[in-house]
């Protein structure tokens, strides 16, 4: 046998998984949510998603070319960031804001830190924070929150998000129950669950996001502990504080945040225990911002804050080693 053989360290066989495969499966799992965004907010939602995807991919490729690094846009991570970022904007936002948000997300939050695997913060959420700080009116004003399609009218009507409605009503001294405030606008739990309410294009449908995340949990790509403990904390905290827990779980960006943003592998802790601590912190911060903070919604900032605690959480949640025994006292 005169053929040259390959020599390398064990193991000599490898699982067939890869980063690209993981990314594309996550993207596929978002198809129901993308469809929901089209169903409720119309074709413009799809346009925004495409703009964000293309902007992310082009930015990543350009930076990698410029830095003379291998171009890795085929791994799907930039596409995923684009979709998630677009999910975070209202349907009527000017398209160039989404484009700039995408460029910022990839250039500053991802590539400036060294690219995939090295970023501390979730790039899509940094993009959202950037857009929110730079164009607060376009990101939150009622003019840009669109009432979803009802089937009869093709014109988007501006309307406040359910969280905004309730927060404003409570601030104005309303003594009504949350359910009543919503019922006046024709919103029930069912509308909140399927996503037939105004809000960012990808966040409103709890159902569509749930379908996706269940698939990912079954495939082992999402640690169920994060969404479970995150949503659980929000539910229990709001319930104990006398708010409507079902409303707080279904409304706003909690589903998108808990299912897709907080479970981002790169920016979440590595061990199971770490993920539980991370999720409890997320729940606490989200409720705190929603209840005591100035914003009606607190999911994205909670995740960004917890993102920076991940190295610390990792340090303190190291699993107990096999066969570890306390040193005997002399």
């Amino acid at each position, binding site marked *: 046998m005169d*053929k040259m*053989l390959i*020599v390398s360290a*064990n193991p000599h*066989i*490898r699982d067939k998984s*890869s980063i690209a495969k*993981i990314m594309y499966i996550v993207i596929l799992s978002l198809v129901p949510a993308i469809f929901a965004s089209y169903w409720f907010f119309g074709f413009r939602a799809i346009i925004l998603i495409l703009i964000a995807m293309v902007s992310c991919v082009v930015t990543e490729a350009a930076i990698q070319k410029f830095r003379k690094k291998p171009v890795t846009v085929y791994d799907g991570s930039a596409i995923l960031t684009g979709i998630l970022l677009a999910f975070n904007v209202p349907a009527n936002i000017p398209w160039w804001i989404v484009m700039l948000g995408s460029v910022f997300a990839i250039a500053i939050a991802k590539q400036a830190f060294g690219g995939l695997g090295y970023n501390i913060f979730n790039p899509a959420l940094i993009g959202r924070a950037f857009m929110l700080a730079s164009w607060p009116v376009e990101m939150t004003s009622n003019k840009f929150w669109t009432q979803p399609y009802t089937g009869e009218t093709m014109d988007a009507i501006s309307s406040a998000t359910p969280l905004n409605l309730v927060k404003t009503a409570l601030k104005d001294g309303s003594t009504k129950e949350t359910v009543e405030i919503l019922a006046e606008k024709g919103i029930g739990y069912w509308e909140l669950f399927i996503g037939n309410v105004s809000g960012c294009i990808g966040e409103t449908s709890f159902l569509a996001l749930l379908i996706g995340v269940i698939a990912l949990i079954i495939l082992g790509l999402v640690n169920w502990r994060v969404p479970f403990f995150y949503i659980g904390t929000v539910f229990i905290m709001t319930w104990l504080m006398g708010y409507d827990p079902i409303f707080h779980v279904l409304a706003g960006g909690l589903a998108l945040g808990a299912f897709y943003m907080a479970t981002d592998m790169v920016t979440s802790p590595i061990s199971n225990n770490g993920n539980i601590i991370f999720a409890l912190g997320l729940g606490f911060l989200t409720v705190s911002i929603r209840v005591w903070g100035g914003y009606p919604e607190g999911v994205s900032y909670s995740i960004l804050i917890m993102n920076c605690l991940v190295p610390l959480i990792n340090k303190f949640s190291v699993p107990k080693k096999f*066969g570890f025994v306390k040193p005997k006292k002399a």
Partner: protein
Amino acid sequence: MKYTFSGGYHPPDGKSYSEKMPIEKMPSPKIAAIHLHQQFGAPSKAIVNIGDEVKVGQPISEAGGFVSAPVHSSISGKVKAIAKITDAAAGNKSDAVIIESDGKDEMFPGVGEKSDYSQFTADEIKKKIAAAGITGMGGARFPTHVKLSPPAEKKINYIILNGVECEPYLTADDRLMQESPDTIIEGLKLMMKVTGAEKGIIGIEKNKPESIRIMKEKTASMHDIKVIDLEVKYPQGGEKQLIFASIGKEVPSGGLPMDVGVVVSNVGTANAVYEAVAMNKPFYERVVSVTGESIASPKNLLVRIGTPTSELIEFCGGVKEDVFKVINGGPMMGAAMYSMEAPVHKGTSGILCLSKENAAVYEEQPCISCGKCVSVCPLRLVPTEIQMNVQYKKYEQAEKLGIMDCMLCGTCAYVCPAKRNLVHYFKIGRAKIAEMKRKK
């Protein structure tokens, strides 16, 4: 009850190539190269000279200390040279006695003589095991007589026989359990006698139903020997994992099985113990699975120690066009070979010929902290963090994180979607730490 451990992963097991092939005796080689150092511990010292006539089973070296073992000639003929030959396990060249066969296969006087071993005392049995040069046959090659001589304060309660064979592809132990169950059980009883252990356990993974059935049948009337069927998961056959799965005890970090009253031994080793004690047969041949998708006809062979790998491959019809890697041992922990002159040694459980499709070498991508390595680590370490500390030369931190506890099983690297070569770094890190300690 489920017998298993936390973590682990089940790769496609590839056993179908050779699991139905009965053990076949391979003709003895024309030239055998027998390494003087083929055990954990000190190298043995040659006691033959160039030109000496040797017979099958004749000792050709003496142990180089207590933790060492002699080697024996596996063929009859003339000592041609004592030269440096590629050692598949160590990866470098080391001293080997090279014997040219006279084609007669004459036995050394006394080898193969049956004796009434039930009369032997524990010390006599131990001496026979030591003289026969028996080492663990699973891969680590720890001298068996040392394992069976724990310090007086360590009471041994269990002898656990490792018939798990969790490494994909390998079928040598599986075949041996099916074809010579009685000698394995006798070997186990001898080890129990030596150590005074009251209980014997034979652990077999559930994907070997035939071996489980036969072993259960043979031990049905023995109240002190139990066969347990273990969950199919790599590395179920890791010593510490097997002990935990069998008796629910964790061997302390840095400790040995004897710390929890256990001695673990491979089924092949038990067979060798029986042969050494009852038949006065030293360790000069073993069962090797020659398998993989890139070998023409996979086989389980009874091979003389010192037979060059090339002869095994030839005997199995040669390699196919698509061969990419040849491995001495299993695909998870075995050593990739660069030279086919390297002979079979006491720990060679298999010769695998793998194709590029299965043994591809990948480019490393950045870690995306997916946590898969953490969830599969059978020792509950954080492999990715240890790897990064080694990469950035922070050896002390790597040590704190448990790099020395790592047994290099490779499960983390197997599942890593970024295809990071974790074990490669662990090996570097451990070598560096050992070096630092020596300097101190």
